[in-house]
Every structure is written in structure tokens, then in C-alpha cells.
């Protein structure tokens, strides 16, 4: 794989749409020294307007539905949406809840699913690599 269209590091924005914190702490764990994806220049940024990748955790509660859509719209193209965790991918243990607008792919288009409850940091890193390839392909089409 060659990096032509995106010759800079991915910046990541994290949205918690009603998650239990399990995935969120694993995302932070993959940034901190043991797994350390910051060495590739990837970092969590403070606003979706600076981000290339949206990391969405949680099954999307009704309260967060509009907010998630808005964050998605604020992220500039080319962008990739990654869902971290089972409950964002399918509903997981919360599938029958009355307060869910999700899973995430019912609210915004999703590119990469990382399953697990919560997924290990290695899985999250692999997901980011997949996301990167996807952004490259988006660039090639244009």
C-alpha cells in the first residue's frame, strides 16, 4: 500500500454515543505507551473539524442521535467512520432497549466495524489501518 492521497497522519475524533466506558478506555489505552499509536502521529483531537476519522462508541441513545449526525456533518471529507464495540455495531446487550436510535449504521454511514465487548487495543489499531486504506481508495476514485 502506498500513501499518495493522504500523506499525513490520521487525526481522530472520539464520540461517545451512550457507551459503557469500556471501549472508551480501550481507545485511550491504544494511544498510551503500551500500544502507543501516537508514534504514527495519530492523536485524539478536540473538534470534529480537525478530524479524518470518527470513532463512535455506544449504541446511540435517542438523546445523542442528532448530536452524532451533527458531528458527522462537521467532519470534513475525506472521512472514515469507525464503530468501536459490539453495541455500536449491532446493539449488543442493549439490543432491545426502548431508548436506542442505533446501532450506529442506522444513524450515519459506517466504514469500519471493530467488534468485541470491548475490543482489545490491537483490534482497534487494526481497524485504524483498515480505515486508512479506505481513505486511500476514496482518493483514487476521484
Amino acid at each position, binding site marked *: 500500500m502506498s500513501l499518495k492521497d493522504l500523506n499525513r497522519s490520521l487525526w481522530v475524533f472520539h*464520540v*461517545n*454515543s*451512550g*457507551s*459503557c*466506558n*469500556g*471501549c*472508551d*478506555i*480501550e481507545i*485511550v*489505552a491504544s494511544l*498510551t*505507551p*503500551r500500544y502507543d499509536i501516537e508514534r504514527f502521529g495519530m492523536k*485524539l*483531537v*478536540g*473538534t470534529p473539524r480537525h478530524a479524518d476519522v470518527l470513532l463512535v462508541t*455506544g*449504541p446511540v*441513545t435517542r*438523546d*445523542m442521535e442528532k*448530536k452524532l449526525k451533527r*458531528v458527522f456533518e462537521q467532519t470534513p471529507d475525506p472521512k472514515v467512520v469507525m464503530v468501536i464495540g459490539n*453495541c455500536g455495531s449491532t446493539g*449488543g*446487550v*442493549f439490543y*432491545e*432497549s*426502548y*431508548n*436506542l436510535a442505533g446501532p450506529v449504521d442506522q444513524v450515519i454511514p459506517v466504514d469500519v466495524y471493530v467488534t468485541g*465487548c*470491548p475490543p*482489545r487495543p490491537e483490534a482497534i489499531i487494526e481497524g485504524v489501518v483498515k480505515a486508512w486504506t479506505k481513505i486511500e481508495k476514496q482518493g483514487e476514485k476521484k
Partner: protein
Amino acid sequence: MNPDKVIEKKDRERKPDEPVKKKRKSNSYSLSIGPIHPALKEPIRFDLQIEGEKVVKVDFELSQVHRGIEWIGTRRNPVQILYLAERICGICNICHSTCFCIAVENIANIEVPARAHYLRTIHAELERIHSHILWAGVAAHELGFDSVMHYTWKIREKVLDVMEALTGNRITKGIMMIGGVRRDINEKQVPMVKEALEYYKKGFGKLESIFLKDPVIKSRTVGTGILSRHDGLALCAVGPTARASGIKKDVRQDEPYAAYSDLDVKAITPKDFLGEVKGDVFDRIVVRLLEVKQSIEIIEECLKQMPKGKILHEEKIPKLLAELRNIEGDGIGRLEAPRGEVIHYVKMVGKEAPYSWKVRAPTYNNLLPWGPMLMGEQVADVPIIAASTDPCMSCTNRAVVADGNSEKILDNEAMRRLSVEKTNALKRRLGR
């Protein structure tokens, strides 16, 4: 002691039928933070009224993480609920599943084997180490010390390794079962646990010198976000937040569960270390760091004292479920989670699923103290003060709690009545 004192100053001075004075709009601004904001790890919305840099009114709105867990629980059997209970919060998952186990065991009169009690204690204390170190990292991040955050998260990985070796999972462990625990600790694993504890004893010195001696951290945290002992009692603060205000409240000491009755656990207050209690952010850091030390001692003691024997009341899950299907009555589980006291209430009516399940997580109690803590502080100190109670929104948001009106939150009659009752009970118990 009059709980009225904790109500907003403006309201206290106002007579009952006097109309609310309109605020001068010229120098008061409202600042809305969240629900998606880099300083907040979880969705919650703060509405602050500020005058210059000073916070004059605090309001917060929950419900963003409401997933209807209690309702889902009434459609599943108790063993399935264990795994749902773990997903109330990914950080304190052992305490929720254990608390549910204790409540169901109370109803069914299930006797838990002695070894299982010790295993539960070990898992709970490992989780406390993990949670407190994680919090120290978040606190450092809120203060702007990212290198300290990375250091704390690095040493935190060790306890995750231990938990993974003992349970098979890093975060949600799936180790608790009604009537015991699912996996034993074998002889080969004991040296690894001991090695990790030694690692933390060494690492603790560095954490201590960073957090307790660094002049910058000191100047940011000493005297910031003060919660007085009086306010802490009146607003029912729990866990390290209450203990940092000098309230000696700890379920492990007051009403021992699992193996804590065999162990000598004392509630830690900053008085033990600093000689005085201020109730500020610094005191909360001190209490949490001392509790990491305490947890290490508890685990060592458990490994020494642990008796041999069974670890489960009933190994066959279908048989256990058949037993639970016939029970009737209600039970309460109480335990000390890393953030404070957790209560689970379960009512069974002779059916497969419980008739009712209610969870009260510690953050629910520790939300109201935000009022007195944030009042009059600078906007820049809001993140560290809010983080100093170690809030966990996913624990709290099972039921819609607040209605977005600060006056109602702070002036809620029912809440106040409960506070008065609890204050009086505590006063009686403390002999004051």
C-alpha cells in the same frame, strides 16, 4: 446543622413568597459545555452562569447515556443480567455484577463459599487499583500534564495484565456468578499477582512525588473545589469524595461484605496523611492514592489468608436457574465501588426474570456536591473539579435524573428531605 445552607445563596435569602429577582444580564454570561467536548470523557451537558472568570451558577443535564438497562433487566434471567450489569459501566464492572449477586443471594439465601468471598475481594481490589490509577491519569490530563497521564496509563497496564490472566478479559471480566465466582486463582498465578503488587509499591513512590509534591499540581488543586464536611453530609456524598471531606464512610468498614469482615479495613481520610482535612481537589487525590496502597495491602492479606475449597454454590447453571426461578422476595446488595457506595435492589416474584431491578450508582450521589464545589470557582478549574469526584455517567444514566433546571436540582424538596433524614441518621451515628 441546617441543610438549607447548601442551597444556593440567592434562594436562601429570598423569602417564600417573594418573586425571583431577574438577573442583571449585563455582566452574567451563560456558558454551555458538552455533551460532546474534549474535556469530557462522557456525554454530559454543563450550563454555567459566569461573571468574568467566576462561576456563579451551576447546572447540568444528564440522560445522554440512558440505555434503559433496568427495564431490559426485567426481561432476562438473573444469570443473563450479570453480563448486563457488567455493561452498566466498563470501568467498575466487577462491583455492579457482585452487587447484583449479593442482592440475589440475599433473596435466595444462597451461602457463598469462603474461598469465593476472598476471590471476590481480590477482584474488587484489583479493580479499585485500576480505577484509581486511571482516574489519576484523567486528572493529570485535565490539569494539562499529558506526560503524567501517559505515565499513569502505562503503569495501569500491569494490573490489566493481572486481571486478564485471572479472568480472561481485560475490561469486562465476566467472572462473577450467583453463589460464587467462575474461576479460581491457582498456585501458578499467585507469584504473578505478587510481582504486580511489588511493581505498584515501587511505582507508587513516583506517583506520590508527582501528585503530592509537585508545586504546580499543588497550586492548581489546593484550595480548589472545596466540599465542606457539612455539605458532604447534607448532599450524601459517597466514596473518596466524602472521605476527602473528612466523612469516615466506607461500606467495607461499616457493613463488611465478602471477606472484608476478616480484614482490617479503615476508611481513609486526608487526616491520616496531611494531618488536616480541607475537602479540596488535592485531598481527593491524596485519598485515592492512599487507597491504592490500601488495596495492595488487602490483596496481599487475602492471598495469605485465603482458605481452600469450593468457589461456587452450584456449578450447573441450569440447576441454579431452576433454583432462582422459584424464589420470591426482595433483596439489597451494598458494596464499596471505587467511586463510592453502590446499591442494587432486586425483587423476584417466582418467575424467571426479576419483577424489578434498581441500581443506585455512586456518581448519582456525587453529582449534587458539584454545586457547592464549582460555585465561585474559575472557569478554568471546572474540568478538574468536575473530574475530581471521578464521575461516571454511564453508571448514573440508567434513569433520567435531572430535568435541566438547576433550581430544581438544588432545591428539590424530596431530595432535601432525604438529605435531612440521612444527615440526622449520620449525626446520630457519629454522635454529633
